[in-house]
């Protein structure tokens, strides 16, 4: 992480190109699945893109419940532009802001 608070935008932007799910996203998938399991959630959406700045990007939405009400977690996982197995991710509440 070059900047502590820097991560890909929550929605795909023009510099990104659509990608297909492949082995190249495997470590992103592992992170998404692990967090979904941890939060007793279910992955309901996945979007695969690539960008020169962020490398491979997997955006996922995890459906879960908070206090018995349906809620969700937005999750972005990305590889970075350099080749290597490491991935990073960011999460936020998928709900109307406070």
């Amino acid at each position, binding site marked *: *992480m070059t900047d*502590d*608070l820097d*991560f890909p935008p929550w929605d795909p932007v023009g510099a990104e190109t659509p990608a297909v799910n492949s082995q190249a996203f495997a*470590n992103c*998938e*592992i*992170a998404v*699945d*692990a*967090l*979904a*399991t*941890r*939060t*007793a959630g*279910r*992955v309901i959406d996945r979007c695969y893109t690539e960008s020169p700045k962020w490398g491979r990007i997997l955006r996922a939405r995890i459906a*879960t419940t*908070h*206090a018995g*009400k349906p*809620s969700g*977690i937005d999750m972005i996982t990305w590889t970075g532009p350099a080749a290597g*197995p*490491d*991935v*990073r*991710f*960011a*999460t*936020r*509440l998928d*709900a109307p*802001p*406070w």
Partner: protein
Amino acid sequence: MLAQRLARAWASRGRQVDDLMRFTHEGLVFGAGSVLAKAAGDARDVRVDPGESRLRTLLAAAHLSQPRAAALTHLAKAADRWREGDEGLAAMHLALSGLSRLARPAADAHRLFLADGLLKAGLDEADVLAALGSLTKYDPDQPRVPAGSGQPSGQWTSDGSADGSSAASNTPAVSPATPQVNPGSVTPADDRRYVPGFPFHGEDACAVAIDECRAHARSYRFEDQPPSDEDYIAPGLTTRIAQCHAWALVCEGTEALVKHPETHVSGGIVTFPDGGQVIVKRGQDPVYYPPYWRGRAPPIWRGGRPLPRPPG
């Protein structure tokens, strides 16, 4: 008759299909409630035997391919961590197995359900696999029991030696190269104190973020949200508090993912519902940034008490 019974049971099942494998009070559950490994009395007492033919048959039915030994070892480790109460590591080993998600949830769960029903009805695992027939992908890399080993040759075995020794063994095939986290080696939290409004570096960053999130939930005004029945005293309060608590799972899960070397996750950013953030990087203490860090207005702030700004 059996086919009709299974069809009726599938049609009348009371559960939705879940595409992720999970530990529940029933045990290790997958698809439409099919139990891969049953809990023995206590919900925590779940054991996975990588060599168990029933488990391998069910997974073959779910994924249409024979599970690999390394994947089964991860399931066994997940059960071990679950028994120890470490849900984070259990979830990680499930994900690392590569077996924990159904590619085509409805169809895969249905096939798993049918295979489970056939086994419960007394069919042999070999018969169920034969029924799956050509649906099951052939994996030429899957080790087999060689001829002359004293066991039926040609059957799948769970280790890489292909000597058949683990085909009937109850001992999980743990690779010595696979690192494991020793919960006893976790460094205790230090005594650094959090100063409200300033970044906090330390292992308690998630706990600080959760406390701050709850404090903000109580202190913010939410005039734009109508009161509901359950929180008529403070509109939206119970929902906001619940969101803070839910985010504890996300934050702790992020820490666990980054700490675990097998995940290849080198960093995570958790944005709490109040706008606070926790940054977790491999090999470093996590850091909590309150919503006003660097003079930024909290991105989802709606009023209430202003947080103190850091100097400069």
